[in-house]
């Protein structure tokens, strides 16, 4: 129902990405490459990338260097640091450090998959709605409103309560809750592009609709798309981690950051590491992706200003 909320609002860069793109930026063959290059010059993007790289490295290579198996018992439950376990043992007596090193991969791939699904579906809906300019636009936007009415986590939990905690279901539902949010932004950006002369020209020479939407319109809305991609990734990580923290993601005894927090939160006073390590990893990862997103958004404004 509200038409005002978009990526820029979410990021707090309101006004930044509004207004028509300058022609020069449109004429560039790959404007997003230039934006990424400029974003890399910003300190915040570099810090963000470094943080993300460290956490991804822990998640990917952690299982290879972990001293113990994630399910091996190494000491008395909630015991402190020892020669066998540098961060102590968790609520069941398993090595906190090894479980931490094993626990990051699922969060990562689930959020990447959910983001990809949500962005692809959202871009298709948004561009088709903007290009159609008729009843189809209305129908798609009403459909968006329906999904938007549910808080993201509540819709995921509704599906989980019906079908049980399954990883594919989490990817599907997180993706579905992202799609209308992406669609709204892409529709807003594309509405002005579909009025341009080159779209009219493509229509005049009888190009197929699909080619016009994805060949002519899509390349001109890559800037908001990049920002949206980063933003949705940040929110995906938070949602996926929250769902597994609530106990509806991976099931015990698997090692997983969200689940670790859940399992050890009641013994937080005696064994804070088992909660602190996964909390730090999830928090740093979302802050890292948000810094990169912010860098891209700022670079996009810079390019607009420089060329106009």
């Amino acid at each position, binding site marked *: 129902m509200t038409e005002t909320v978009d990526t820029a609002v979410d990021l707090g860069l309101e006004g930044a990405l509004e207004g028509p793109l300058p022609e020069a930026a449109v004429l560039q063959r790959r404007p997003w490459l230039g934006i990424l290059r400029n974003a890399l010059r910003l300190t915040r993007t570099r810090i963000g990338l470094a943080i993300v790289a460290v956490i991804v490295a822990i998640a990917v290579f952690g299982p290879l260097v972990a001293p113990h198996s994630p399910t091996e018992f190494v000491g008395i439950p909630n015991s402190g640091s020892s020669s066998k376990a540098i961060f102590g043992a968790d609520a069941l007596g398993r090595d906190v450090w090894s479980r931490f090193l094993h626990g990051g991969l699922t969060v990562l791939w689930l959020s990447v998959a959910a983001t990809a699904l949500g962005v692809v579906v959202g871009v298709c809906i948004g561009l088709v709605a903007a290009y159609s300019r008729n009843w189809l636009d209305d129908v798609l936007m009403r459909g968006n409103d329906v999904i938007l009415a549910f808080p993201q986590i509540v819709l995921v939990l509704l599906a989980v309560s019906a079908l049980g905690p399954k990883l594919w279901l989490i990817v599907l539902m997180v993706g579905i809750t992202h799609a209308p949010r992406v669609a709204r932004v892409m529709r807003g950006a594309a509405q002005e592009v579909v009025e341009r002369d080159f779209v009219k020209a493509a229509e005049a020479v009888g190009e197929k609709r699909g080619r016009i939407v994805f060949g002519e319109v899509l390349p001109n809305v890559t800037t908001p798309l990049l920002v949206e991609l980063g933003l949705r990734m940040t929110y995906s990580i938070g949602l996926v981690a929250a769902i597994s923290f609530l106990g509806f993601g991976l099931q015990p005894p698997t090692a997983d950051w969200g689940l670790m927090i859940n399992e050890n939160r009641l013994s937080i006073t005696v064994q804070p590491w088992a909660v602190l390590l996964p909390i730090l990893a999830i928090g740093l990862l*979302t802050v890292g992706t948000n810094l990169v997103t912010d860098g891209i958004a700022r670079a996009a404004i810079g390019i607009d200003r420089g060329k106009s």
Partner: protein
Amino acid sequence: MKKLVARRLALGLLTLWLVSLVVFAALLALPGDAATAILGKEATPDRLAALREQLHLNDSVISQYLHWIGGVVTGSFGTSAATQQPVSDVLSARVANSTFLVLVASAVAIPLSIGLGVWTAMRRDRAVDHSVSTVTLVLAALPEFVIGIGLVLVFATSVFHWFPAVSILPPGEKAWQEPKAVVLPAATLILAVTPYISRIMRGSMIEVLESEYVTMARLKGLPERTVIWRHAVPNAIVPAIQVTALQLAWMAGGVVAVEFVFSYPGIGAALIDAVDNRDMPVVMTVTMLAAGLYVVLNLLADLGTIMVTPKLRTAGR
């Protein structure tokens, strides 16, 4: 204006109806049916048949939906599968607790973030503006349960011991009788929503401060305080109304993880228990309430925007 308001109301009702279809679809998605989900696979055929009769599962899908939606409209949400009590009995105390939590959080967060937005807009590009924007960027990225557990570590268990780490209330006690138990959950929600409102307020305030009528007011020699609070803020607040409504609606979902972190006896924690027990009547009721709140808040924000925007207010007169 009447036409505009009527259109918004009609769209709101349409959205609510479609929302109810999505919620009801969850019931149809259950593997087996609601009766096997409640009684489990080992249930005797007799008991299953009896429960199916009780839950109207032998009726057609359409009449099941009509039965359910009729109950929702009249405020009878069915019987909890886990406790066999009416859903409204299970949820009423929890709705009160969650409402209190959200009200406390908004009462602090809205003035705080509007003020922060105005304050940073007036100090644009100075050091304080940059530090506030970095902090809000970090807070906006953090999932709410991460903020919550961070607060627990700092203010309840590991650094200071000022507040309880869990907000479990004695049976029958309401949240407002234990103010200390509300502080950390409310603080979590405040930290989660403030970045969004303050950033939009800052952006719209900067735009207004550069406008001609603000320059005009200054040239007239009005005191700066009058310029800001009488001329600039009322105009800058319009976009903030929409975002504030969205953030309030977001809290309906935000309370889920936050209440779980603090074991706060609210509607979010009830939802998690219900999902655990596959207590569909409770899950569907909570989902319906959360989505309904979003639709209503959005409607109010739209009406509020119409009220404060002269162009829209006088349209069609």
